């Protein structure tokens, strides 16, 4: 294994008509790293990943994968690289196993037993001989992971792997990705779910409208995270709202459901809620509306970042 970066993208730009989908982003992923690219839909994550796979040509910038470039090395760029973009797609008239066998042919063949091995890894052995047209969404996602593992990659690129899955599917998919990451594989994971990235990744780039809104470690991100908002519902929300006026640093607003949204530093919010209870106002509900990292994610991607918070790569 060389010391080359798994992904070294600098100043990548892509425009579709009048829309600048990716605007000069730079991302560096070291070998062995589990890297998250986070952003809301339309942030440019998938466009970036498509450029990495050579499906889209960047208008400007430099993109190296294990020190190889599309211009110089052609499809050899994808040596040791595998993954899927958005929902993995297969030929519905072929079985899962036939799809894998066909794709293996496109990789120049795979070693004996590998197809069974990857089917077992994603728990599709029992359903491998059914036509993919009858697969559920989650099964196709897992077949996508299996198709990627067939390439025995050093870099695994997964675009929203848990997208569209039910809670059990999400849990299983995350467990699989974590297990793959723990085995030393470099993983580049695109997601719009902060919890997913926080759980799996070491470093993260947050994208917003084609640009980088944040780059750094998950620890850096946690340090920047604001206090979480809370949903407060009482038997007398009007009185609870009045009581908030006596507490500096607490912001209380009406929720569209009639409850209250309380935000502020944890200690100040705790003092306010204590006063609400002490005033004899019975609580019906007091729950966080979002995690601190989610709050930061929304801040970075919806309302922009403070100049001091924005980090270049």
């Amino acid at each position, binding site marked *: *294994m060389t010391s080359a970066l798994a992904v070294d993208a600098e100043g990548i730009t892509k425009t*579709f008509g009048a829309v600048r989908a990716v605007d000069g982003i730079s991302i560096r992923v070291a070998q062995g790293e589990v890297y998250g690219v986070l952003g809301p839909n339309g942030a440019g994550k998938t*466009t970036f990943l*498509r450029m990495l*796979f*050579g*499906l*889209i*040509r960047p208008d400007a910038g430099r993109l190296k994968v294990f020190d190889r470039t599309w211009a110089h090395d*052609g*499809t*050899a760029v*994808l*040596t*040791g690289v*595998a*993954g*899927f*973009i*958005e*929902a*993995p*797609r*297969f*030929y*519905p*008239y*072929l079985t899962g196993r*036939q799809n894998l066998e*066909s*794709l293996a*042919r*496109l*990789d*120049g*063949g795979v070693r004996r037993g*590998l197809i069974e*091995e*990857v089917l*077992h*890894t*994603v*728990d599709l052995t029992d359903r491998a001989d059914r036509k993919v047209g009858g697969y559920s969404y989650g099964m196709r996602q*897992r077949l996508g992971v299996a*198709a990627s*593992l067939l*390439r*025995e*990659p*050093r870099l695994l690129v997964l675009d929203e792997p848990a997208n569209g899955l039910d809670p059990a599917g999400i*849990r*299983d*998919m995350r*467990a*699989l990705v974590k*297990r*793959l990451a723990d*085995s*030393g*594989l470099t993983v580049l994971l695109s997601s719009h779910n902060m919890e997913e990235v926080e759980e799996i990744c070491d470093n993260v780039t947050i994208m917003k409208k084609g640009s980088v809104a944040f780059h750094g470690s998950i620890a850096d991100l946690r340090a920047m995270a604001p206090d979480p908002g809370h949903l407060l519902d009482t038997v007398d929300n009007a009185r609870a709202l009045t009581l908030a006026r006596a507490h500096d640093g607490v912001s209380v607003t009406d929720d569209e459901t009639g409850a209250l949204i309380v935000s502020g530093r944890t200690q100040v919010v705790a003092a306010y809620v204590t006063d609400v209870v002490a005033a004899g106002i019975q609580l019906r509900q007091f729950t966080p509306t979002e995690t601190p990292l989610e709050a930061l994610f929304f801040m970075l991607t919806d309302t922009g970042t403070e100049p001091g918070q924005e980090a270049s790569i």
Partner: protein
Amino acid sequence: MSTTTSAPHRKTVAAPRAGFGSALGFELRKLRSQMRTKAVLVGALIAPIPIALAIHSQGNPPKDTLFGRYATTNGFSLALLILGYAGQWVLPLLTAIVAGDIFASEDHHGTWKTILTRSVSRSSFFAAKAVTAMGFAVAVLVVLAASTTVFSVLIGGQSPLIGLTGQLIPVHEAWRLVSASWLSTIPPTIAFTGVAVLLSVWSRNVAVGVATPVVIGMVMQLIGSMGGAETLRPYLPTTAYEAWHGFLAAPAFAGPFITGLITSAVWTALTLGISWTILRRRDITGG
């Protein structure tokens, strides 16, 4: 999934050798797996039987059609009459069923991103798909030709054929000329494969890729039959479907066949060249 074992063991390996051959094998496997492909081949084998029977059983033969006069009494005439009809729209349709679908179906299934993220280049995929489409077109044509000729002779009888200039063609020579006539339609069929490939790549739509070559073929025939379009006529691939007429004259002449060969080659090169340019430049944003 959560109960399974760890990921497969990885090792750093050299870039595997995968190119045109791998892509061709991949395309052929897909082709073999599709019911439509088998249906077309079986149709090409069986359909000539009822058609030949229907024509043969007519009380009044289609006398105003080439080789129609003796179609009810001579198997070779019957095979050539069917060839005349086939060249009008059947052959463009048969080739378009695969060629018009082979690129657009990747868009339909959303599988461009699946195959282009493996080890085979776009150029290899393009070449493999084009060769598969052309190979299938030729295979269908050969099956249709063999089936039509054999069953026409079985149904209509094996007697000397009366040529276009009234000459009598012995049976063994008739077999050779009828076979050559059918095979002479390979070049324009390949040209129509190119047209279907272009429509498939350009439109990304299976229906457009399959149906439009048939319409284009009919329009070309209309143009070819219009007065004032004589200069244009030799350069239409539909005209090449009639090149076999020269084989059945006395003396025989091959000029239209050679012109048709060159015309078909130019159409094939142009349509495939444009198709490749479109595919090479395309950003795969969907699928």
